[in-house]
């Protein structure tokens, strides 16, 4: 259950920080259903021996599952999950089992588009070592008090 206080359009301003959220530890058993859903049989995500032969410390979490937590950071905080309008996300580093992922955001712009309140923000995700995993931008709508 996300306990972060929700915001209204009138409350937010440029430069404001969105309350951060930490997820994890990441669980290697999650990679099996994700592999099935994606129909992605790449052993990099499932076979530790194969990953180590490629010089990696462990299996690599699927990229879309990394994104899941950056999305949740926004959609759990928004009033309604589909208040999310746009995302632009760059993949910077791999996630491994047991990692903790902390997501951050800063509001960069507040405006209206076709009458709808819109907020742009910079978002990023880092692991427990402070390494950037995902970097990007998002746009969402917030309700007005009424």
């Amino acid at each position, binding site marked *: *259950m996300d306990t972060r206080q929700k915001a209204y359009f009138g409350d937010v301003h440029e430069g404001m920080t969105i309350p951060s959220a930490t*997820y994890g530890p990441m669980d290697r058993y*999650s990679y099996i*259903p*994700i592999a*099935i*859903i*994606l*129909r*992605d049989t*790449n052993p990099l995500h499932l076979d530790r021996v194969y990953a180590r032969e490629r010089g990696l410390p462990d299996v690599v979490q699927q*990229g*879309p*599952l990394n*994104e*899941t*937590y950056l*999305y*949740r950071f926004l*959609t*759990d905080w928004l009033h*309604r*999950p*589909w208040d*999310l*309008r*746009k*995302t*632009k*996300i*760059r*993949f910077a580093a791999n996630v491994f089992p047991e990692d903790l992922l902390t997501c951050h955001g800063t509001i960069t712009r507040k405006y209206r588009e076709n009458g709808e309140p819109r907020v742009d923000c910079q978002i990023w995700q880092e692991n427990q070592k402070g390494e950037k995993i995902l970097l*990007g931008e998002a746009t969402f709508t917030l309700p007005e008090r009424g």
Partner: protein
Amino acid sequence: MIMTPDRKTLIGRTFPAVKYVISEDDIRDYLPVAGEEHLAFLSDEGARAAGYERRVIPPSFAPHIAVLGMLRSFDWEKDFFLDYKTGTAMFGEQELEYLRPLYVGETLTIQGTVVDVYEKQGKRLFDVAKVSVTVTDGEGAVAVRGALSYILFK
């Protein structure tokens, strides 16, 4: 040294459209893994209480749909000149716009077109292939649109 064919020749290539049903099975598997708990993801009643017409999927599942659509529509070897057993492909950037909520049970059509390919030098030389993606619904209306870029090492 094995020469990779010029991937710039891929620009303009449109992959076959892929149909994907947002199945109950996939969502049942996904929700606990993702920790997605909003009532709108669990039942029609929960969704209506949140103002949706019926049960929706989490927005976090949308990138999975774009990615699985592309994985089913292109062939690494034929379409990207990449030997998937020995080569390395990674995600670069993903840009998605959501024009409406997505619903459990609906059938979507996913289609990608290679819109750009360019070479970059990092620790290794690689190509970036940018693929525009549209996700259309049963009525042919676009529900999600955007682009995925893939990093393909040489």
